[in-house]
């Protein structure tokens, strides 16, 4: 096969524009007559907006208009909806109040947009927003999820006890019975720290109404422009779908935060018709901190039961999940079907019972952030398994192996049916790569230098692809989660692929072209990937949940099957042979057993010239489409091992070594996959050691900039040793499982297990800053001295 096909380590095609400054991100787009929006945001975490006086704002030179929630209400522009229905254990539907795009009544977090000012310049719009006189009636705020249900503060009238739902999964009685027969029970209380996704490109929107066609165009930073259009059309009443074009051009990272529809793009689009001018808004970083959906934020108590040999018998979990001020688009499924369904980890656990209470607090809405639910599940499982092995005096690798699922398919007690895997293979390979046997020697050597060295395992599993549609529908999803593709072969034999997946760093322009190159025997430079424009691509579900390979590329593969089948028919006519005798290999159709052949471009040209085949039998042209709805989730899994060295004098942790052995099934481009792993690990290390959102009791965000919220820098991280094992995914023809989230899922428990191993003390909160580690190390040392 060509050297640009599946499995080839090809440099990325899209890089040319990014390394020369020719990328086109939303804020780089400018249109004639453009105006600027500035949002006036609630400075209070919980307050009734009594009035908005815009007189002074309108007097600011260059201010064109001011709009508030009342204006949206007048035009029946609906609130942002929750897109996934969860039922409580008593059968009642969740309490999911909508989020008005501009406050109508109460503001529920600092940053909730109250009004928008449109100006001739950004400076004018901002001056106008400053000049608005907003009168608030300030209420007490509640920010701590653990206190939300008992708080006297009520965010929403329709959500008593600030509760969205009280949900359960698993068999309560069977789990209780498992605990009764246990020889050892390990308990763990933890909080999974709240994070800010912080893609480097801040969100941006440019709304433009065209009176001539009575239609809107929105440029926006979206991971799924078709879903944005659907929501804005079907739920928000901004415009009918055929009158709204959404374009997500180059997008500078998403990590989940750019899945959702946000108030700003709705308002810029809607208001562009009101003012008759295009309107641009771009978040500054502070706005990103107080408006981009945050991630994680769980408070959890768990218990795990073992027999005398350390075989796991049961797992019990109670989690309180913080949803923030409103239920964001997919927020309600994150702590339920993306979390508790993965609580079996890589282990054969006969009985699991999980309860999740989702609560509202006066904080920024929380939604899916890289991994979404699965990092929270993995952190819990891999921490409690590690502690259990330590308590029982069993080597942590041995303990894990003893409990690994070994036969597939495997039905867990929490919905998921794992299709393929070899967990011992990745653990063994990781142990070899890090030289697990030599760890004792390294620990002693570190001790001689006055350092505490620890080793931490994390054997994670995730459910990716986020499909099939019927399955997610039965669990409450408001949408189907298939993907679409169209293959357009041009008469000269080059190819355009239109895909519903969206690339915002993943390198689809290269990997998707590699698939086409592999299948059609043409170079990747003969392939263009078209994505991110609702006027070009008919529909698509977008990119999240590591689904573009497993679901998006499978749709392309199916469309390529159809192209190949039709091309074969045409080739048979060109070669004057029977279709059944035609073989397609290395870009040429040949008659088997002869040297008669035609190339793919020759067939393409003939498909359009249409001289040499009967048009009543074969339609001219060569263009095929496909929708792919998978039959199962995919289950990437693997083992990460972290070695850490701690200076007990300062609590500073240095990651001394990192090994990742992942099973992503088949890999299209190893270079790109490794890059995904590196980036994921860095985000997980950020969660473990540096990143954490902090609110004060009044609901002010204390970590609202890169000065206060610690992002991982180059010198916080080592170079990583990354390798793979392969069990092809059985539920798609390409055998792909997905790789986008694995690093972020695997890494936090690896880090914390290493730290707790080093200091001999389990009570560590994330982020494990030097102060946290120093205190815990002193407690560990004191306990050791007892």
């Amino acid at each position, binding site marked *: 096969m060509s050297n640009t096909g599946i499995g080839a380590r090809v440099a990325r095609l899209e890089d040319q524009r990014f*390394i020369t400054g020719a990328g086109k991100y939303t804020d780089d787009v400018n249109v004639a007559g453009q105006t600027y929006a500035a949002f006036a945001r609630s400075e209070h975490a919980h307050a009734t907006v009594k009035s908005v006086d815009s007189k002074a704002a309108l007097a600011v030179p260059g201010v064109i208009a001011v709009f508030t929630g009342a204006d949206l209400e007048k035009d029946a522009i609906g609130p942002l909806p929750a897109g996934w229905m969860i039922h409580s254990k008593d059968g009642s539907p969740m309490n999911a109040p909508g989020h008005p795009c501009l406050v109508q009544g109460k503001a529920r977090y600092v940053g909730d947009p109250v009004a928008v000012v449109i100006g001739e310049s950004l400076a004018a719009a901002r001056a106008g927003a400053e000049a608005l006189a907003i009168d608030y009636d300030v209420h007490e705020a509640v920010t701590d999820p653990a206190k939300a249900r008992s708080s006297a503060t009520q965010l929403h009238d329709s959500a008593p006890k600030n509760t969205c739902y009280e949900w359960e999964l698993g068999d309560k009685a069977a789990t209780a019975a498992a605990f009764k027969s246990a020889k050892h029970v390990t308990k763990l209380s933890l909080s999974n720290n709240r994070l800010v996704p912080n893609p480097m490109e801040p969100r941006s929107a440019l709304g433009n109404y065209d009176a001539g066609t009575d239609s809107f165009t929105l440029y926006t930073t979206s991971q799924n422009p078709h879903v944005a259009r659907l929501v804005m059309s079907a739920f928000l009443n901004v415009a009918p779908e055929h009158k709204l074009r959404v374009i997500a051009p180059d997008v500078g990272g998403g990590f989940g935060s750019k899945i959702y529809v946000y108030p700003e793009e709705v308002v810029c689009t809607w208001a562009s018709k009101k003012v008759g001018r295009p309107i641009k808004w771009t978040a500054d970083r502070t706005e990103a901190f107080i408006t981009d959906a945050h991630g994680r934020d769980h408070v959890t108590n768990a218990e795990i039961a073992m027999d005398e040999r350390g075989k796991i018998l049961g797992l019990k979990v109670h989690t309180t999940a913080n949803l923030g001020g409103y239920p964001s688009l997919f927020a309600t499924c994150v702590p339920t079907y993306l979390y508790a369904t993965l609580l079996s980890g890589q282990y054969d656990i006969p009985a699991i019972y999980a309860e999740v209470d989702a609560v509202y607090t006066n904080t920024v809405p929380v939604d899916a952030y890289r991994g979404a639910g699965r990092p929270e599940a993995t952190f819990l499982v891999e921490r409690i398994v590690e502690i259990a092995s330590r308590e029982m005096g069993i080597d942590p690798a041995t303990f894990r192996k003893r409990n690994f699922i070994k036969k597939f398919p495997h039905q867990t007690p929490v919905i998921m049916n794992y299709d393929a895997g070899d967990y011992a293979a990745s653990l063994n390979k990781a142990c070899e790569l890090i030289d697990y046997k030599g760890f004792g020697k390294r620990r002693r050597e570190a001790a001689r230098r006055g350092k505490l060295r620890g080793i931490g395992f994390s054997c994670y599993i995730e459910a990716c692809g986020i499909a099939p549609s019927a399955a997610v529908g039965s669990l409450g999803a408001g949408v189907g989660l298939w993907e679409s593709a169209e293959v357009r072969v041009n008469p000269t034999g080059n190819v355009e692929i239109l895909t519903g997946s969206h690339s915002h760093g993943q390198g689809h322009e290269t990997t998707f072209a590699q698939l086409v190159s592999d299948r059609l025997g043409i170079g990747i430079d003969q392939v263009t990937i078209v994505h991110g424009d609702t006027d070009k691509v008919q529909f698509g579900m977008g990119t999240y949940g590591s689904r573009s390979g497993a679901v998006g590329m499978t749709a392309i593969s199916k469309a390529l099957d159809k192209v190949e089948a039709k091309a074969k028919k045409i080739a048979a006519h060109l070669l004057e042979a029977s279709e059944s005798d035609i073989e397609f290999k290395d870009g040429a159709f040949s008659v088997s057993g002869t040297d008669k052949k035609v190339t793919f471009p020759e067939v393409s040209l003939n498909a359009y010239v249409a001289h040499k085949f009967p048009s009543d039998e074969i339609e001219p042209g060569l263009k095929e489409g496909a929708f792919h709805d998978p039959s199962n989730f995919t289950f990437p899994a693997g083992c990460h091992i972290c070695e850490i060295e701690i200076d007990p004098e300062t609590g500073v942790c240095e990651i001394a070594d990192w090994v990742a052995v992942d099973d992503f099934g088949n890999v299209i481009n190893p270079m790109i996959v490794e890059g995904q792993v590196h980036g*994921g690990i860095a985000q997980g290390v950020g969660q473990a050691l540096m990143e954490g959102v902090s609110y004060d009791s009044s609901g002010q965000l204390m970590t609202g900039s890169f000065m206060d919220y610690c*992002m991982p820098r180059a010198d916080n991280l080592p170079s990583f040793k990354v390798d793979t094992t392969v069990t092809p995914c059985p539920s798609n023809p390409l055998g792909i499982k997905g790789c986008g989230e694995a690093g972020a899922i695997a890494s936090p428990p690896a880090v914390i297990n290493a730290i707790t191993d080093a200091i001999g003390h389990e009570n560590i909160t994330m982020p494990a800053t030097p102060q946290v580690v120093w205190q815990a190390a002193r407690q560990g040392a004191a306990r050791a001295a007892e």
Partner: protein
Amino acid sequence: MPKVTMTVNGKAASADVEPRTLLVDFLRQHLRLTGTHVGCDTSQCGACVVHVNGRAIKACTSLAVQWDGASVTTIEGLASGDALHPMQEAFREHHGLQCGFCTPGMIMAAVDLVNRHGGVPDEATIRRELEGNMCRCTGYHNIVKAIGAGASAMQGSGKVAAE
């Protein structure tokens, strides 16, 4: 409004600007050189790094009027025609970018880093020097690799401090 005149990527550029106009806004809004990005408002992220008179600065924390008469190189001016700068080539070759948003600032900072240190800096030096440039995609692994390779290539091509 004061008039500023600079040489930007080898060409004369001039505009009347409000005194408070930042260099990055002058480049992005007035000259439509949108390769230089803005990723934060506290001078932390480095997406806006450009070279002024041969030194890397953060264009988001500097006024356009400060640089009247200066020579500015942005990411758009780093290549010589179709021939990429060795550091640009190294970022592509070693997959030192994913979403591409931090990349212009990274590359400009990397070229400056090599110019200041000379030779091929070791991994620890590269990591320390990147303190002012954030990337959320790559985990820095391949950026560090790319800068090392780019530094080697710059020695070979005589590109060090040759702007």
